């Protein structure tokens, strides 16, 4: 009686079809030259999630060029902390100095507006609790002298 060897499932050697279904495993290895696995080999993986985790946890950095998120100016960057690879690209958003300043100013304005609204709301609430008619009927001056 002969027995046929059963195919063994190996997550590191999936077929292209399996690759397409999983969305996480690619057909060739990504390799780190700075860190090693338990066997003393360079860390290697086909798995995007594992790769992202490795690069994040071990402090890998990114260098490259990227267009400003708002104005399309080209930004050259070096040694930026690692950001994940995703099917929709690198999870990295950069803004040039000018656009970053504008954004901060806008955020500051929004904060200020919110603070004003909050203050006015508080004032109105206090006024209403002190004098429910204060906003409907302006108070008459009481300290005017008739001359």
């Amino acid at each position: 009686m002969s027995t046929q060897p059963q195919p063994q499932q190996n997550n590191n050697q999936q077929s292209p079809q399996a690759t397409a279904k999983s969305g996480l495993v690619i057909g060739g290895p990504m390799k780190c030259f700075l860190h090693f696995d338990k066997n003393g080999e360079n860390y290697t993986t086909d798995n995007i999630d594992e790769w992202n985790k490795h690069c994040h946890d071990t402090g890998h950095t990114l260098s490259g060029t990227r267009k400003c998120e708002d104005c399309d100016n080209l930004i050259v960057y070096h040694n930026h902390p690692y950001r994940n690879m995703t099917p929709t690209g690198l999870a990295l958003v950069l803004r040039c100095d000018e656009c970053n300043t504008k954004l901060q100013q806008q955020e500051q304005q929004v904060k200020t507006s919110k603070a004003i609204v909050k203050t006015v709301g508080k004032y109105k609430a206090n006024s209403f609790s002190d004098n429910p008619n204060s906003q409907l009927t302006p108070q008459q001056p009481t300290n005017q002298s008739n001359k």
Partner: protein
Amino acid sequence: MSTNQQILLTPEQQSTKTLKRSKSYNPDLHKCETYWCVVVKRKNGKEELLADYEHNVFPAGCIDSIHNMSFINTSNTGTRGFGAIAVTADTTQTLNSSVTALTGEVTTNGLSRAEANNKAHTAGTNVSLVENTFTLTGTQSDVTRAALFNVVTAPVSGTIGPVAAFSTSTGQMVSGETLKVSITITTS
């Protein structure tokens, strides 16, 4: 007459003329590969994944350019990197290492060859990313393939780099929709 004349071999005669693999060489690991992701964003905000880390075809001309850029050229005015992305609606071209152009390269509707707006290399690894987002300015049907080039001017210029076919074509695309092509490159 000397009887102790030494016979010297020329370097060519000395050579075994075979590549010497390093001890750690693994034919399954030592390759240059690209893997392509393509995402279409429809006007209603829905995103469709058309290529999910699809493996490339690596043309011979690209290998030549990589060698020239990396080891041969003596100035930085030589061949530039493969950072321009082109797309096509063609499905007839046979994609293999002999390709020298992208048949039917699209040159209109916002899909003309473009310098990738994002490029990144992860230090200490064999991984780089090149990606670009095309925003349509007209109607275009069935984009099916994309390729990297080392010249932005299109079409039929420069050397073609890695090229890949999408799992699914884009179908009809209209103005305002976007096509994002992201390429993960591994070399070791």
